[in-house]
């Protein structure tokens, strides 16, 4: 038990050291800091989805919608309301989370494939809104004409706009904040209840747990995290894309979570790293990268259904 605990601490320390030093070890390996920033943001999105998928056991296949809403929320705030990066982040998170809360009420009683289908279909609503409402959202071209703003810390200004490294550390700070809250929730009695529902819904119900309400809260929380990640993504690109709301983006997020390992807290981050780096590489070497990404889906499902972490843990045991 003691050894297990130490091992966990070492792994945790290794993850954070790797993240903190990423701008320095990525460049020699052929990466670039902006890629690390993207990995971090998409990793946060995959972890947010996994909060619902892996820990509550509910399959949402439309989570890109809340990610995209976060992006548009942040972009629209910077473009029309206020030139403030923190405000944009809050606005994006609220937009994603609140829309998730409302739609969650409609779908929370469904399970399994039905839940998946309804989340896909409702996710597409936001895609069409972003696509059709060109006067506000820029339609097919996406939302342009905004950029992240330097952060005024009183004593000095953090220039996250032109310095890639400062921006990476800013994103890492936001990531740590979100992941910290997520970890805290999962350790709380509420988090334990989520896991209980995943393991045996019927028994949880017999124990008097209001299952629907818990699933709704988990869904809503995960949409808030998703909106936050989306808002960060808008800052990464200074751009919000309607395709970021599309169900194919949701599929990518589910894939990241599954590929890394759904049952583990950090698995989705690993999955996102592999996925983003692989996609970045494939799209630079072949026009048929879609086939390879599709093949990756098929191979992971057939041969690594428990994800990379699950695979390693099993082979060690």
């Amino acid at each position, binding site marked *: 038990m003691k050894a297990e605990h130490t091992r966990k601490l070492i792994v945790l320390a290794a993850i954070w050291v790797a993240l903190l030093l990423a701008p320095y070890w990525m460049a020699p390996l052929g990466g670039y800091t902006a890629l690390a920033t993207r990995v971090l943001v998409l990793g946060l999105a995959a972890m947010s989805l996994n909060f619902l998928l892996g820990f509550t056991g509910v*399959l949402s296949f439309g989570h890109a919608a809340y990610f995209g809403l976060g992006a548009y929320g942040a972009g629209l705030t910077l473009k029309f309301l206020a030139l403030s990066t923190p405000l944009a982040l809050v606005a994006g998170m609220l937009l994603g989370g609140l829309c998730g809360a409302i739609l969650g009420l409609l779908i929370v009683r469904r399970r399994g*494939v039905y839940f998946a289908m309804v989340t896909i279909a*409702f996710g*597409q609503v936001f895609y069409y809104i972003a696509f*059709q409402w060109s006067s506000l959202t820029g339609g097919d071209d996406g939302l342009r004409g905004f950029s992240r703003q330097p952060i005024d810390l009183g004593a000095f200004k953090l220039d996250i706009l032109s310095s890639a490294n400062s921006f990476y550390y800013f994103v890492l700070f936001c990531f740590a904040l979100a992941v910290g809250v997520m970890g805290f929730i999962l350790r709380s009695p509420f988090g334990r209840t989520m896991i209980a529902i995943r393991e045996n819904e019927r028994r949880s119900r017999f124990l008097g747990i209001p299952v629907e309400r818990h699933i709704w809260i988990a869904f809503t929380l995960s949409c808030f995290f998703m909106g936050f990640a989306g808002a960060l993504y808008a800052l990464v690109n200074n751009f919000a894309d309607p395709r970021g709301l599309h169900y194919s983006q949701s*599929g990518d997020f*589910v894939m990241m979570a599954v590929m890394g390992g759904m049952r583990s807290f950090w698995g989705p981050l690993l999955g996102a790293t592999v996925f983003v780096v692989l996609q970045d590489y494939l799209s630079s070497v072949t026009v*048929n990268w879609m*086939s390879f990404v599709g093949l990756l889906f098929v191979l992971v*499902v057939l041969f690594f259904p428990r994800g990379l972490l699950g695979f390693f843990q099993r082979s060690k045991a």
Partner: protein
Amino acid sequence: MMTQLLLFNVTNGLIIGAFYVLMALGLSLILNLSNVINFAHGGFLVIGGYIAYTITPYIGFWGALLLAPPLTAIIGLAVERVLIRPLYGRDPLYSLLLTFGLAFMIEDGTRFIWGPQGKPVTIPAFLAQPLSNDLFFITGYRLFMVVVVMIAVALLFLLLRYTRLGVRIRAGTLDLETVAALGINVGMLRSLNFAVGIFLAGLSGVLAAGQLGLEPTMGTGLLMPSFIAIIVGGIGSLPGTLIGGLLIGVASGVTAVFFPAASEAVIYVMMAVILLTRPRGLFGEEGMMS
């Protein structure tokens, strides 16, 4: 003029609805029996269309109409055997992800083989004529499509109602365990059921090719409305899927007259309203697929 415009769009809606119905019935069959959401269904439609395009020069349009759907079904059968069969009994998440990846591969594959440009499929000249000058929008081909869809749907319901295979599929939808306990080969049943679903996708591919021309991405656009047709009609009910498909087709057609920008969004609004008032869809039954 207004009535003609309305009539034009209602007809359009019915025709597009007929496509949704063919797609959605196939999806529904597979979903009900095997609990698999087949994301690659649009891909099989595209395969059907391109097969028709490839064989039309040799055996003509009528030959392609007869031959392309069964060929598509055979490809579907192979895919089911090799890729989907290992996933039965696992979390539906996995079959969803697998078919999702498969859809990518099919789209990219067709682009690789046949090129990214749209391809026309020649239809017999007499079908391309409008039926009358007043109703210029009803070409023979559109009428023909609706008739073919009607025949296909009727045959499907007859198959399910009266043949041994159909009875087993319906029984399996209700209680697969009991069906297996009665000594019926469930693996075979699922394969045949999958093939029937893909046959319908292939058929809609051939029909769509004649009307719209072919593009590697055409299946994706039809997939989501088919999902909604199933949800609106009620998961588990094939007649529900039929009504749902026609309903959303007509609804988006009518909306196109008054508020074109919302013609896609309206079907989602319909779905929301129906889920609010009838959580299981129009014909969904209590206890099915809850």
